[in-house]
């Protein structure tokens, strides 16, 4: 009897272990960077680091738990050294993917997750396996956007239909994300890999036109996932793949926010919409080309802030055995057209990032990256900082995956 009980207990324990999938990552760096204070420290610099020293770049635990009836729970718990909130979830989603014999299938997910618009952030924990400093577009997505809602997907895997083409149509509706657009309007695009966590707050420089009572009278921080206007947003995405060789993704996003809505913290809802086009083509087994273009606009108040923004990157990545070299060019422009000239939100810039990453075991990776950018933000003048800045940053990174 005892043996039987032990067997049952062991079986249950084994099932629990088997049904969990745990993946984790620790990434630490030594940075050599310029000293322009970054936005997280209330400066106007667009790079994550402003001191030559060691940093904990990423630490996270990715947990997947199978549940009955085709449900899966997936969470990513992150710990950061920098930023406002240093421990929390960057993703927490319940996924429903039923088995189906049909050629057109469907799946859904609910929770707090990234829209799958990036072909750059394809590693565990929404990291990029290519460069450490991410593109301007996906730096922004990581810091200010998440879907707190539900997403439904119709999809058709090409191999099931004996076709080279696979497709997906994704539709989501979500709450929160009302302040989306504030960061790129006031600070401009930045280039980094710090992802905001659920409940996080992102700091900004104390631009007088933003914080003064005579101006917009807004805090010099935003809470990216805060619900302000009680309106739901929507997005629709279309994926088209040719075998595993070529991928194309289009997303139209509109948070449908009421730009005149304001909460007690004096955080506004920003009406933000964009089109995003992402493309990847594998030129060979070793080499791939990845690109993304985003164009959109955001409005806050009664045209108090209105900007059009465009951002683009083109990346070439090549793998030689356990070595990978990636080179990316970024361009980003924010152009204002609003009623308050004192709050000038013109900014633009470009960046070049070159990274080498070497997997010296399955768990351990070393990397070197050098990034340069030239960026201009007119509102720096209000803080007695030169509008145009040339920033650069070198990183030596050690990564362990488990």
């Amino acid at each position, binding site marked *: 009897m005892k043996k039987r009980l032990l067997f049952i207990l062991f079986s249950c324990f084994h099932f629990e272990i088997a049904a969990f999938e745990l993946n984790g990552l620790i990434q630490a760096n030594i940075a050599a960077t310029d000293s322009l204070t970054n936005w997280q420290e209330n400066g106007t610099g667009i790079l994550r680091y402003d001191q030559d020293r060691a940093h904990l770049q990423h630490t996270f635990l990715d947990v997947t738990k199978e549940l009955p009836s085709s449900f899966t729970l997936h969470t990513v718990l992150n710990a950061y050294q920098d930023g406002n909130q240093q421990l929390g979830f960057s993703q927490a989603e319940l996924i429903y993917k039923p088995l189906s014999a049909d050629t057109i299938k469907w799946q859904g997910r609910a929770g707090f997750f990234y829209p799958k618009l990036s072909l750059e952030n394809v590693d565990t924990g929404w990291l990029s396996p290519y460069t450490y400093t991410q593109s301007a577009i996906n730096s922004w997505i990581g810091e200010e956007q998440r879907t707190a809602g539900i997403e439904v997907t119709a999809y058709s895997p090409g*191999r099931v239909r004996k076709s080279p083409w*696979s497709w*997906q149509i994704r539709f989501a509706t979500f709450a929160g994300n009302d302040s989306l657009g504030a960061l790129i309007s006031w600070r401009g695009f930045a280039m980094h890999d710090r992802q905001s966590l659920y409940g996080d707050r992102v700091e900004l420089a104390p631009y007088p036109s933003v914080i003064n009572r005579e101006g917009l009278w807004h805090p010099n921080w935003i809470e990216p996932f805060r619900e302000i206007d009680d309106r739901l947003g929507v997005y629709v995405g279309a994926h088209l793949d040719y075998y595993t060789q070529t991928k194309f993704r289009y997303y139209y996003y509109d948070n449908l926010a009421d730009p005149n809505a304001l909460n007690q913290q004096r955080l506004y809802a920003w009406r933000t919409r964009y089109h995003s086009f992402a493309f990847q083509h594998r030129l060979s087994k070793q080499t791939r080309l990845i690109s993304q273009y985003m164009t959109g606009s955001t409005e806050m108040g009664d045209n108090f802030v209105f900007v059009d923004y465009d951002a683009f990157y083109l990346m070439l990545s090549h793998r030689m055995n356990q070595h990978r070299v990636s080179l990316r060019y970024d361009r980003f422009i924010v152009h204002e057209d609003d009623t308050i000239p004192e709050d000038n939100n013109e900014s633009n810039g470009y960046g070049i990032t070159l990274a080498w990453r070497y997997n010296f075991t399955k768990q351990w990776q070393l990397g070197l990256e050098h990034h340069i950018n030239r960026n201009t933000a007119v509102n720096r003048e209000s803080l007695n900082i030169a509008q145009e800045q040339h920033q650069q940053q070198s990183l030596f990174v050690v990564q362990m995956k488990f």
Partner: protein
Amino acid sequence: MKILFVLLILFCHTSNAVSFKVSISTPQNTTLPNVVVYLIPNKAVNNPISEISIMDQVNQQFKPHILPIQTNTLVHFPNSDSIKHHVYSFSKAKKFELPLYKGSETDPLLFDKPGLIELGCNVHDWMLGYILVVDTPHFAQTNAEGVVEFDLPADKYKVKVWHPRIQDNPSHLEKAVTLKEDTHLQFKLMSELLPSHEEYEDNDEFSDYEF
């Protein structure tokens, strides 16, 4: 005397064995490897449950892509990848689903009905594999030259061929043969092959796999 009798039977049996060679060529006279060729004898052959075959998951693909087995064979589904798979089949001959967690083992499944089983993975939608369960111990797959050879007892057989790319009329893919001596049978396919779609086997290491 008994030993002599056994030796006589063995000798007779050996002398009755014939070599049977099957070649398969496409309408363009190209070769097609991995075609399953199987011979069904006149008398049914009972196969006790004993064999274990393997259908592995390697680099997010089924390995082998086509697995022929005899009825009543157990198939083990290991997971050589460091990520989860969720293998399933909706085929009449065997409906099942099998979650394969990283680093865990599952019991082998019994395939006790003849027929074609199409395998998919509910995590990696591009994965496709086949298990063909045949009611005979005489089966094999063509080599790179499109040829397969059998050594088997002289008898009457029904020869059948199958491959997912072959779309000929089924009646053209089945031939009755009486094997009395070494024989070479040639199958010339009439219809164009379906596209291989082998590009799906070119796995992207960063596939951003969907749940």
